[in-house]
């Protein structure tokens, strides 16, 4: 009973932390004028979304195993045990894709930020927005 209660508190705490991190990262993206800080906030946002996805794929059961089959000669019982104990493999697969896309975007905007600094000597969006031509 106490264990169940503690587990519920811990899960709620985890979700609260994740949603709070979402808030902090959105604040960084919207409010911080420095482009580098915006990029950092964007990566925090993406990583938090990925952690959230992993939590969605987790299962509140015991024992729980990774989605890796342990034998190359599985019979029906092994397959049933595998399906009943494994985590959902779809969110991790989506997260891998998300990480690559997130990284590609971060890479590109970081290079653009570096180029902007080289050309205009500032990473402040207020200064950059005043430029003409």
């Amino acid at each position, binding site marked *: 009973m106490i264990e169940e209660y503690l587990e519920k508190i811990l899960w709620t705490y985890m979700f609260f932390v994740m949603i709070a991190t979402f808030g902090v990262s959105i604040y960084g993206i919207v409010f911080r004028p420095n482009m580098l800080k915006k990029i950092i906030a964007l990566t925090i946002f993406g990583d938090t979304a990925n952690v959230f996805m992993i939590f969605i794929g987790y299962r509140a059961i015991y024992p729980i195993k990774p*989605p890796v*089959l342990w034998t190359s000669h599985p019979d029906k019982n092994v397959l049933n045990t595998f399906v009943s104990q494994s985590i959902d493999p779809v969110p991790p697969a989506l997260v*891998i894709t998300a990480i690559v896309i997130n990284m590609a975007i971060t890479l590109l905007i970081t290079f653009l930020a570096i180029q902007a600094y080289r050309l205009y000597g500032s990473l402040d969006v207020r200064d950059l927005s005043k430029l003409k031509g």
Partner: protein
Amino acid sequence: MKKADVFVIASIIVFILSLAYITALGGLGPLPPINVRRIAINYLNLTYNTFTPYLTVFALESVTSIVWDFRGLDTLYETAVFYAAIIASIALYRGVYMDFKKNTEKTGLSPIAKTVTRISLILIPTVSASVALHGHLTPGGGFQAGSIATVVIVLSIIIFSRYFLPIHGLSKNKALLFRSIGLLGIAITSIALLLIAIVLGVNAYIFQNQAKIDAPLSFPSLVDNYILGGSLLFFNLFEFIAVAFGFTIVFLLLSISEEKVKKVTMDG
């Protein structure tokens, strides 16, 4: 504080609270769930299932099976996005060439750091190759392995010098060539069975791994009792090459002298 700022902060707080409330109400279902979704049950059942040979992947790792078989085309485009981002980054450095300063003995960190790094430079590629080649058996795969391998590049630049890699023959263009070979390997693997099927006059599909009811060709899934996972092994290998050299290009570009880049950028 301006009114607009107060409005934006209030909007963010309302958004976060709404998200928390929706989640607490069960908008995403019970979190964490007890049962997996139906699609996940299918994927788990078909990862390595000798009872349904026309639907299975014949690999032990479900996530890699999904990434490179069940939704392989999606992953191909994802790799293409990463490739496009690197090409765009290279375009920003057009006209900038890397330095070749001969003597790197006097540059870099201490001899202790250099010796430790020399040992690591052998171990890290070994680990990354293992992660890539076992991606269909254990957690890991081409992207993870490529990311690990890139540590070698970062370490070399920091510990020795930014001239270390160009002197040892690893230039931006060479890395781009290997990166293109990796991507070409992924493309060829995705249509390999289709090309063979055209020659043999049988049916096949793009991204086909194992034989289907109406398409009899398969990649080898078991050789001498060793599970190969069909096309998954090749995809992981080529993705490993593509990602490792993609990151290499990025770090090589970032290591170019800032004064030099600035001069080329300003002069046009």
